[in-house]
């Protein structure tokens, strides 16, 4: 039966002929199909040898028929279908905070700011004392601190802001300069949708002989305009941070939306200049700090800060 069937398929000269052969051998009442149905009636021993052979034959014929069918050109042939979905190769994803950090660095670099980084574990001196925030003072309550265990001359802590880098940078550089300092910061905090024990800040510092608060206004308006690429209304209002004087807070709003607090800032306090041995009569400048998580949440509409640190790729892969 095999020889006969193969010969018939081989000699078929049209699609119809091939189909005829298929029906004859493999159709519902075809010869091969019919034979396969009779196998179950054979003795067990015979079934074991005949069964696989018959199945192999069926498979061989199916392949031959498919091959033959394909050899005929014309209406029945499947043509190249370019509308099928593409095969995706995996794509990697940057974390949204990395993307936002990159945007921030790019914009400030274009404004001639240098990017520097500092340690996440700091000393009490750099995080507080040098920034005009004395110990045992309620001003420190603005920063709920995670303290590090251990003894030593200066107590260690997890930096509560990126501001310590103001001091470190000025200790080793001369004015004029302009820098930003992105990095992870920490607070002793009960976590919820808008609070995390670790989060990201970007510090900015511009110092020179005649850097003014009006210059600060220009820089932040320029920055936020480029960052959000939307029309933004700004509100500058008084605020208090021990390391600046005057101190301001920056709010932004899109259209008729709500005011959003986005930045604390001010003119560097003379005590801060003194602690890095700058002469406050010779130089002046502004400093600012903003939360990267908050910027990302506003930009992408992310409702919960905890998502950033969840390690969930379903979240990350959206960016």
């Amino acid at each position, binding site marked *: 039966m095999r020889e006969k069937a193969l010969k018939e398929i081989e000699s078929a000269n049209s699609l119809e002929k091939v189909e005829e052969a298929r029906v004859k051998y493999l159709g519902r009442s075809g010869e091969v199909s019919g034979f396969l149905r009779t196998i179950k009636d054979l003795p067990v021993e015979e079934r074991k040898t005949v069964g696989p052979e018959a199945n192999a034959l069926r498979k061989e014929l199916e392949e031959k028929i498919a091959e033959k069918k394909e050899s005929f050109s014309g209406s029945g042939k499947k043509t190249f279908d370019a509308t099928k979905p593409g095969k995706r190769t995996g794509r*990697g994803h940057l974390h949204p905070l990395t993307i936002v950090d990159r945007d921030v660095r790019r914009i400030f670099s274009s404004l001639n700011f240098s990017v520097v980084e500092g340690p996440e574990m700091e000393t009490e001196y750099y995080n507080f004392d040098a920034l005009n925030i004395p110990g045992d003072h309620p001003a420190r309550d603005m920063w709920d601190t995670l303290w590090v265990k251990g003894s030593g001359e200066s107590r260690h802590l997890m930096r509560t802001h990126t501001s310590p880098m103001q001091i470190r940078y000025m200790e080793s550089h001369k004015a004029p300069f302009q820098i930003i300092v992105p990095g992870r910061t920490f607070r002793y905090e009960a976590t919820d949708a808008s609070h995390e024990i670790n989060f990201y800040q970007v510090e900015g510092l511009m110092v020179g002989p005649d850097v003014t608060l009006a210059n600060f206004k220009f820089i932040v308006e320029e920055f936020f305009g480029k960052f959000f690429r939307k029309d933004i209304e700004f509100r500058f209002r008084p605020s208090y941070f021990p390391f600046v004087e005057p101190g301001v807070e920056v709010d932004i709003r899109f259209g008729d939306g709500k005011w959003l607090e986005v930045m604390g800032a001010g003119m560097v306090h003379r005590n801060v200049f003194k602690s890095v041995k700058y002469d406050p009569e010779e130089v002046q400048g502004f400093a600012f700090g903003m939360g990267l998580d908050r910027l990302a949440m506003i930009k992408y509409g992310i409702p919960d800060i905890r998502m950033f640190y969840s390690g969930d790729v379903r979240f990350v892969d959206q960016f």
Partner: protein
Amino acid sequence: MKFSYTFLKKLVPGVKDKEEMINLLTTHSFETEDGGGNILDMDLPANRYSDASSHWGVARELAVARGGEFEPPLRYEVPGGKIDVKIEDSLCLRYTACVMENVKVGESPDWIKEILEECGLRPINNIVDVMNYVMLETSQPLHAFDLDKLEGGKIRVRRARKGEKITTIDMQEFDLDSEVLVIADASNPVAIAGVKGGHGPEVSGETTRILIEAAAFDSRQIYKTARKIRLDTDASNRFSHDLSLALPAAGLLRAVEMVKEVSGGARETDWYDSLSEPVPKRFVRADADRIKNLLGVEVSSEDVEKSLRRLGFSAVEGEENLWEIPVLRIDIESGEDLAEEIARVIGYDKLPSIPPKIQIRAAEENETVVFKEKVRNLLVGQGMSEIYTHSFYAGSDALGSEVELENPPSEEYKLLRESLVPGVLKSLEMNSKFRESVSVFEVGRVFWQEKKDKRERTNLCVALSSEEENFFVLKGMADSLLEAVGLVDYVFAEEVERSDAPLTEVADVHFENKVFLESEGKLIGYLGNTEKEGRNISILEVDMDALLSLVEGERGYRPVSKYPSVMRDISVLVPVSVRIGSVIREIQEGNTEIIRDVDLVDEYADDSWNGKQSITLRVVFQSDERTLENKEVDAEMEKIRKMLEKKFKAEVR
């Protein structure tokens, strides 16, 4: 801090409504929010408690913000007297008191009760209520004692003695010690100084003679005490901040006036003031040029003058630009402070935006920042997703050299991570619930204790989790990554002599199979794998700081060979103990001139082979100078074969 809209509106009637009040205060003074009802919630700056933790102070801010004026009716001269008061500790900076007789204790009038309640204070009786009300007016916390219940009619300000106790008005008992400052009568403490009054000599229905106290204390002392005994009161909150030494007098005089108003017939009979000299006047120079230089906007001297006058500054006659600072404004010290006052009055929104004039220099490119960005890009290009995890983990994740938090927010975050692995493993576990294969990486700081030092560095962790074997996938990715960042000379070794605490600790704890990444004699990372719940997990962790120090900055050009390469395969049977890595290295090192690459193309081991494995290696030969002849390559292969037989007991198949 809570403020009463009703009270402020009474003081500055021109303000249209609550919304306008909130807006004026927020844009000119300090952040103010609607606390519901007639309550305003103000975020008072730490340096403004002296003048503005009071309705009179806020009323002035409000009036000035509207372009008007409000002068709080404060008086500062305490009459002389002879109340028996002794200050035995310098932490009490000033103590003033007044004795009043013929006092009738009863209920307060409604207008007082209303305002107290709006500010979250519970009305008690007319005397106590007046003390609180005057605090709301002036910022000065006050306390009234029943004079007849003060032993000996005496007041002693001293440190508590060991073993002394006090029960406060609200019947809480506190054990005291010498770190706590108290107000005492002839024998016992009657109040925790600056925090709360004691039960016993408080004003009650039968009281007819009172002693009103208005004092000033060292703010750090009160701050420490309130935290230590965990008692946060309206008084301790104000006293924890620096307050003007003039304030007690202002509060006391106003309180006496008010007691007479609510308790008809009461009269003052004696006084006390520990301060014999008036509080010194302070002055500041208002240099219009300096202010202009700081703000970046032209400010006329008329603007300066008008603003300062309305804030209560007074010009010193005969001195150019010299101003006397209002006695309660202890926050004002320098010209920058005045610049802020003027900017606030004018309004920050009136400030122009002016581009800075700077000399252009190439912005510094921090090499760590650039390096991290490069690594991230390479990994994302390999299909990895970047995750961020917490900088802390629980004691159960401890590896051995962690730095500990003194005040962990929870057990879950007790230790500073010394490796990124515990966090990354958690992420893999979570993601595995809905993904067949997970590939993630994290770049982040880790911390560890090295003898006495606490150290910190940046690590990179790359992780794969899937059902199929993935160790060599990651190893291949590691090679690509290291090559791409420019690490030229490195090995993955099974054994390391040195132990770098964080890296070897985590590798030992978490991974059954591992190789260590070494370069120039430095241990800079490891690659490990393990199985968890039917998943293969492979992880690469690298010390990024060390890696950065080892990579070569620039690449050099090497001519492309004009001559063809020749490939030969060799199959050998070697004992299973033979490490394929060593075989490849030996072949490579045999002739570095013409052997360009050696790769594993096949390996197989069968249990029935008596401890043998079959490996097939592909050797690529190429010369920069000539076309290699078959003869030469054959000879080289023969050398390789001999070497394998000798060194690895190989049987060539």
